[in-house]
């Protein structure tokens, strides 16, 4: 039984790490010959991937999966709230900058 839990944790870690490595791939494809360019797609994907990782950490590492519904919903709401704030700041800021 404990091996079942251990395996699950390892799989979770592998998923999180591969998502992290996905950033390296994004970086390579987004930057041409070493110069960085502004890109909404990269920004939004980076933020969304980070939020997915945060949710996975909440549910698996922090054991929210086994928590009462209130905590599940609260942490999900938090992920959404953080997403809205981050993406909102980015888009509103971009609009203001013109």
């Amino acid at each position, binding site marked *: *039984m*404990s091996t079942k*839990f*251990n395996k699950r*944790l*390892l799989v*979770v*870690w592998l998923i*999180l*790490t591969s998502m*992290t*490595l996905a*950033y*390296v791939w*994004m*970086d390579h494809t*987004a930057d041409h010959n*070493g*110069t*960085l*360019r*502004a*890109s909404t797609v*990269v*920004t939004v994907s*980076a*933020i969304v*991937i*980070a939020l997915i*990782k*945060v949710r996975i*950490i*909440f549910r*698996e*590492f*922090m*054991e*929210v999966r*086994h*928590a*009462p*519904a*209130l*905590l599940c919903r*609260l*942490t999900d709401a*938090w992920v959404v*709230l*953080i997403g809205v*704030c*981050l993406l*909102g*700041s*980015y888009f*509103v*800021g*971009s609009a*203001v*900058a013109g």
Partner: protein
Amino acid sequence: MTNLADTGSRPQQLDEKPRKFVPGQPDMWMFVLFESLLFTGYFSVYLVSRTQNESLYLQSQTDLDLRNGVFNTIALLLSSWAIARCVQASREGAYRSALINAFMTISFGLVFLVSKVFEWVKQIHMGNTFTSNEFFQHYFFLTSIHCIHLLIGFIVLGIVVYQLWSPARRSQQLVETCATYWHTVDFLWVLIFALLYVVR
């Protein structure tokens, strides 16, 4: 909603429906949620000021090494994995295994800390300091305040070790509470890494 006494001390049977429990003190969860909101505030300020000055931020970002950020993230993800294993081991009464995992968590945390300090030194040698420009203001601020949380995390992990060491203590709730804090340090870094190193 919450169990009053020992949470999750009984190992679950495979065929039994898993009992719902709040991991650790609900108080720590309140802290986690509040602190993440606070950091979101800081991130929002960063993103807004970034959009007002994109070229400066892009230019400064070239000085950051993505691989460093990836290394840091993986180190913290490993530490989170270790403390999660520690909590489960402790729940099953395998205290020796739990202690080993707790020490592993501390080690990975130290790897992160050392790597971060090296990165700061490298940046300073390149001429990028806290007062250099707006991007580096945010870079040093976010990484420093995160580091302060990490250092507090070492104290918290110390409490985990202290609890697990002697059979006279071993409060499962306290171990879970401390683990919750450590995971927060991890997920905050996940966000910081995406915003400072990857976002264009």
